[in-house]
């Protein structure tokens, strides 16, 4: 794709021409790296160094290729040279992932031992801004121009080559402009806080200490931190060996999870479970039934429309706390603090309404209405069996609970599990457990509502991740928030005059390559290279 002239290896004596080309290729590529490595002893690396060195070296090599006798230009334009260069660039890209980039010198000594100083000396700590890399990109630029010069003039059969290579140059120029001319930095805003008029300039994500003035002012009107809706799950945890901080120990890790439903489920260990019942807003309600003997007294009351059973000594208060109803088999006493107390005695069958100004007693009558009908007396059971029943207050998932039935090797056990008090139900003792729990909170979006003002021009916008705001030549990106401070928003401000050219170049590369691969062969009359049409099936 990148370069192309008819290969020089096919001209003259193929073997010797090829060998000469290979030798010159090796000399140029190795030479560029060595010269770059030596030059950077004196010249510190950096974006400007990279761009300047690439541009100058590229033009020098190209110029030389036109004036130096021999095969320099055809070698530069050749497929062998370009492929060697591409591999060399790939090696640099790989080194950039093997060695940490842009860290303090001390870190290389600590992390890489004896190799640390060598890495720093060779500038492998900032490899993509070093001169050896600049040397290779310079050769790349020269190779593109040399191959274009040999293919001139443009024709329909070669236009794909030119489009792709112009694309490479345009994106390279855009990247260079971006690298040298772009300014980026952080703006920290607070809701209702000060207006920002400058950015703290950063390089490689770290602050440089410099500030850049914005041609406008910006303030944060509102900040939204939106979480995904809370979800619940039955998590299956299994113990496994984990390595952390150089130590190996056993810990439970989530292996799989199940939606809370009533279906039967199989666990990775082969055991089974199901949720027999699910209560979105779990509550226990007492269930009362008469007992022939051995029970306890119970009294049903309806207070403010809510009916419940009170057992011996129990009480219930009105929502405003102004009224307390107490039931006792013997005569109960009024609790302290309540302005009005209704004391129901089961044995004496009396009801005492006690206020600050005195008390009034009346006989207990089932179905009687007191206090203007706010309190109604229900059934009295001298001997009752009281048990708890699971239920739900509403269909909203406020306090989820469930009855979990576990089947381990044919042995069935049931257990109440509450998501707001998650506890493991062991499946295989000490090895695996099920937990009914709330899923971790997950951030859905963080958005800044901002107002940017430049003179009379005002822009009100919402900035979110993937939804930047462009204003007065700057683009503002949402990059940070503080979960503990909902008033804070971190923005990245970027002014990048090269980016449009980079994308234009990329687009041209795609277009040119597609044209070269699929249109040019047709124009040459060969059609797409493909095996001949098959004969009919035997």
């Amino acid at each position, binding site marked *: 794709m990148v370069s192309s002239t008819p290969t020089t290896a096919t001209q003259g004596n193929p073997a010797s021409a090829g060998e000469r080309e290979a030798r010159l290729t090796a000399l140029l590529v190795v030479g560029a790296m060595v010269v770059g490595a030596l030059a950077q002893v004196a010249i510190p690396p950096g974006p400007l160094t990279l761009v300047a060195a690439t541009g100058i070296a590229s033009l020098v090599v190209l110029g030389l290729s036109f004036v130096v006798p021999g095969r320099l230009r055809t070698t530069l334009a050749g497929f062998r040279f370009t492929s060697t260069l*591409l591999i060399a660039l790939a090696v640099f*890209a790989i080194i950039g*992932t093997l060695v940490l980039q842009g860290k303090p010198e001390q870190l290389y000594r600590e992390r890489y031992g004896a190799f640390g100083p060598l890495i720093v000396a060779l500038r492998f700590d900032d490899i993509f801004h070093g001169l050896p890399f600049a040397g290779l990109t310079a050769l790349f630029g020269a190779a593109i121009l040399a191959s274009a010069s040999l293919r001139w003039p443009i024709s329909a059969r070669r236009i794909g080559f030119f489009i792709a290579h112009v694309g490479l140059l345009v994106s390279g120029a855009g990247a260079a402009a*971006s690298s040298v001319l772009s300014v980026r930095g952080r703006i920290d805003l607070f809701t209702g806080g000060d207006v920002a008029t400058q950015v703290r300039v950063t390089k490689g994500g770290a602050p440089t200490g410099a500030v850049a003035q914005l041609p406008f002012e910006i303030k944060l009107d509102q900040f939204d931190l939106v979480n995904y809706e809370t979800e619940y799950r039955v998590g299956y945890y299994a113990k496994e060996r984990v390595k952390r901080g150089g130590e190996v120990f056993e810990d439970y890790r989530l*292996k799989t999870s199940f939606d809370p439903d009533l279906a039967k489920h199989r666990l990775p260990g*082969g055991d089974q479970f199901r949720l027999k019942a699910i209560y979105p807003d779990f509550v226990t309600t007492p269930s009362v039934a008469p007992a022939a003997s051995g029970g306890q007294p119970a009294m049903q009351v309806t207070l403010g429309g809510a009916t419940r059973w009170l057992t011996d000594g129990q009480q219930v208060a009105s929502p405003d706390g102004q009224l307390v109803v107490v039931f006792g088999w013997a005569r109960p006493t009024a609790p302290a603090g309540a302005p009005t107390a209704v004391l129901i005695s089961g044995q004496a069958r009396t009801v005492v309404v006690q206020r600050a100004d005195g008390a009034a007693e009346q006989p207990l009558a089932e179905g009687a209405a007191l206090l203007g009908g706010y309190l109604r007396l229900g059934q009295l059971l001298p001997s009752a069996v009281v048990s708890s029943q699971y239920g739900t207050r509403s269909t909203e998932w406020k306090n989820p609970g469930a009855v979990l039935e576990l089947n381990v090797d044919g042995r069935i056990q049931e257990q109440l599990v509450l998501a707001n008090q998650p506890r493991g139900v062991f499946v295989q003792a000490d090895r695996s457990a099920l937990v009914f729990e709330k899923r971790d909170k*997950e951030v859905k979006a963080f958005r800044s509502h901002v107002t940017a003002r430049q003179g009379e021009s005002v822009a009100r916008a919402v900035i979110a991740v993937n939804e930047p705001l462009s204003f007065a030549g700057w683009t503002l*990106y949402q990059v940070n928030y503080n979960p503990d401070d909902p008033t804070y928003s971190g923005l990245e401000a970027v002014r990048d005059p090269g980016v449009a050219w980079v994308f234009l170049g990329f687009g041209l590369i*795609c277009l040119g390559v597609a044209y070269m691969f699929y249109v040019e062969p047709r124009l040459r009359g060969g059609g797409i*290279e493909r095996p001949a049409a098959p004969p009919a099936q035997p």
Partner: protein
Amino acid sequence: MFLDYILFEHPFFAATTLLYAAATAAYAAAWRSTRALVGQVATGLMVAAVVLNVTLVVGRWIEAGREPFKSLFESLVFLALCLGVLYVVMERLYRTRIFGLPAAVMAFGCIGYALFKWDADIVKLPPALQSAWFMPHVLVYFIGYAALAFATGVAVVQLLASRLPWVLRLTRLRAGTMLTGEPLDLDQITYDVVRFGFILLTIGLLIGSVWAKSAWGDFWVWDPKENWSLVTWLVYGAYLHLRKVRGWRGDRAAWLAIIGFAVIMFTYLGMGLLPTAEESAHVYTG
């Protein structure tokens, strides 16, 4: 016991895995059998596996409420689908089943590996991934990866054919399990498919940069994954150039295609092994 869980809880996944395994066996049998039925059965099994694979992806999409490419597990299932679909298209295009074995092995390998990378939970999309670029980026890259995997399969057959006479015969088989009677130009097929894959890698790289720009304000940050995507592009770029150089067709080109795919696999799965992994925003946590 884990398989028991998969069979009971995820029967479509189990069925897809079994079908890819069966297709692998059938395509392997088709390499040695002269009966056309064996090859037809292999194709049928592959198509069935692909159809079930589609249901897995669509099912996950519905269940997760988002594109199913977030985790390594999800991406492996999707890559298996891309491999399967691309192979079926190629089988029609080149009218041969000889590449069915490597294609089925790779699709089965992806699904099988997904078993070991099982998602403990379906996670939501973080804000950075909530982008219109997410789906086209992944789609283009994975179709590209599938194409280059296919090219690698062809390159492997090409290398085997130059060493094993019976494989060479297969590439020229007229009757029996293979559809075409014409000798296959394996080198040319590899080249054609690499060209197709290379265009997709280029578009994928472009989409990725545009997306990175819109999310973080920078189109290129020399992130390890970005670097390795660039390495992949450069290696295949070198392949396409070297093929025009005398002596770089045939076995050498096939080896280069295989090396290119090894680089893809490292880019896809090996980022966690890099000492700079902690600096990357692209490493799968699954």
